[in-house]
């Protein structure tokens, strides 16, 4: 198995009957992901995109043996969907939903600490994709990626596709691409993914895409400096953003002098990371 999932990963879709859930279910199946069920309370027994719908995650897990879940339910209901997945013993939860209130995420985060058997990716993230296994749990367009040795981890959505696409164009395939989301309280952070890439035999080089706000990139730099042996290239979005203003993502704001792109780029450079001024430079920094 690659770091988050493989051909054998059994996925259920929470909120499968919504417009987005239905559409992305089709794309995941087309890509090769083994989607074994969907969940929508009150719609158990129906079928969506050739997949059976269950009333509860527990019901879906009991019937299908699913170990991974992807959440498309609207933001205000996302926390409840996460608790449901955790309670049902799901190993990996990918939450695409946006916007998820930050207070909800702090509570979910505390609950996850009590349930270390479950990993959450997201919310407000594009999920992950492993080209060699033809598995994607999320919304990263399948055609941008191709199998290869580069691990990509990012806070962003379309900027990630941009970088993956540039890598693919340059002949650099990817081991796994993952977007951890740009919200202030992510389920999985940079360091956790870097650790996995470091020990993943399929990954030789790593790309990190960060943005302004918070100190996750600074912490990642410290980790890279002290513990990583594989080469890392990075891009930080938001150098041109003014302080104190939120740039789309709930987490993308330079506050109280913390979280600026410059600080993050400097910390990464000091950790030996090759930092790009332009995301399209990334492939050349990996060669």
């Amino acid at each position, binding site marked *: 198995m690659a770091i988050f999932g493989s051909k054998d990963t059994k996925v259920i879709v929470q909120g499968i009957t919504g417009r987005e859930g239905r559409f992305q279910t089709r794309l995941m199946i087309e890509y090769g992901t083994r989607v074994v069920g969907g969940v929508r309370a009150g719609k158990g027994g129906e079928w969506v995109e050739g997949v059976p719908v269950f009333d509860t995650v527990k019901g879906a897990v009991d019937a299908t043996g699913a170990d991974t879940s992807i959440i498309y339910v609207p933001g205000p209901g996302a926390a409840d969907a996460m608790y449901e997945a955790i309670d049902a013993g799901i190993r990996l939860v990918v939450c695409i939903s946006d916007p998820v209130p930050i207070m909800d995420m702090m509570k979910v985060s505390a609950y996850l600490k009590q349930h270390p058997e479950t990993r959450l990716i997201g919310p407000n993230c594009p999920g992950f994709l492993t080209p060699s296994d033809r598995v994607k749990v999320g919304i990263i367009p399948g055609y941008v990626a191709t199998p290869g040795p580069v691990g990509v981890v990012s806070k962003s959505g379309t900027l990630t596709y941009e970088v993956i696409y540039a890598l693919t164009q340059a002949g650099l395939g990817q081991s796994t691409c993952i977007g951890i989301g740009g919200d202030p309280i992510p389920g999985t952070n940079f360091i956790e993914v870097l650790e996995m890439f470091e020990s993943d035999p399929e990954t030789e080089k790593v790309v990190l895409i960060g943005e302004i706000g918070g100190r996750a990139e600074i912490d990642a730099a410290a980790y890279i400096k002290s513990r990583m042996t594989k080469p890392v290239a990075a891009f930080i979005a938001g150098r041109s953003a003014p302080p104190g203003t939120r740039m*789309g993502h709930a987490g993308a704001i330079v506050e109280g002098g913390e979280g600026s792109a410059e600080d993050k780029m400097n910390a990464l450079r000091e950790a030996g990371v090759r930092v790009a001024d332009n995301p399209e430079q990334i492939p050349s920094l990996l060669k």
Partner: protein
Amino acid sequence: MNLHEYQTKQRFAEYGIPVPMGSTATTPDEAAEIARTLGTVVVKAQVLSGGRGKAGGVKLASTPEEAREVANQILGMEIKGLTVHRVLVDPAAHIEKEIYLGIVNDRSAAKPVLIASSEGGVEIEIVAKENPKAIVREHIDPVLGLHHYQTMNVASGINLPREHWNAFSSIALKLWECYLDSDATLAEINPLVITAENQLIALDGKMVIDDNALLRHPEFEALRDTTAEPEAETRAREAGIAYVKLNGQIGCMVNGAGLAMATMDMVKLYGEADGIGPANFLDIGGGAQADRVAAALRIILSDPNVKAVLFNIFGGITRGDEVARGLLTAYNEIKPDVAMVIRLVGTNAEEGMELISNSGIPNLTGASTLTEAARMAVAAAKEGMQ
């Protein structure tokens, strides 16, 4: 979403936090009227910006006439680009000591944190740099909430005189309730003052509400002050578009927040030497359809500084042909004469580019990479500025 000082203090008062009993005025006469019953007052500009005092937006007045005069000076004033439309007229307090009390989310700990400092009246970031020992922090369990003993830890940590502990604790617990109920990401009282009469009172306050939580707080929509933001931002929000006005010349329309920032960064990277930068942050969101694209273009072009527009669309959920159609609709309506550079990649990008080239619009050019698109936009803006 930021609340004004007077809105914050109204909300504080609803939770039982003591605040000065003033009210707001939009004319000098109103200010004088309010001052009539309050003795010496302080007249404070209500704009969503720090540094109001330095800018001359906060002034004392000892008579109603003086209040009228001072309000007349402040109303209409510009502070950091924002026009003052309203002043708060508060009774002046006899300040013995100023402290700081706030709650903010600590991202790393994934918990809110109660912060207090014996040095109030100054920005907490400055205290954090210059005298970090004056600051005391207590993390709050997001599920259990703030405990009474934590307020005691803080009160003793900032060496608050013991006689004020009960009042301080009560204010801190109410501030937490207010923070939690409001889905705030910041709630601060600065300064929280001890008056000459030995009372604790929240002299100034600031709250920021989590935008992610606004769906469950319709009450805040009514508090939104659209006069405090560029009109284009109001329109963008109504259209479901994330837009922030900046000071450059190149309007940007992008799908996705990260890519939108990166696009701005490219404009700056290639334009900075010529004094050219992004005119805005704009994320049209996922799966943007033709009408939303048209609305976004109108918003971008409403900024007179814009000399060129850069479209950067990486198709996934968003389809290239939809974006192209929206663009053509908007073009035909507005007929802008600025140069437009468009880059479409991904889902239905070819169909989109074909629609664009078949349209025969002269000032619309295609680009295949972000670097190329940014360079072309910079060149076009440079030309447009001459």
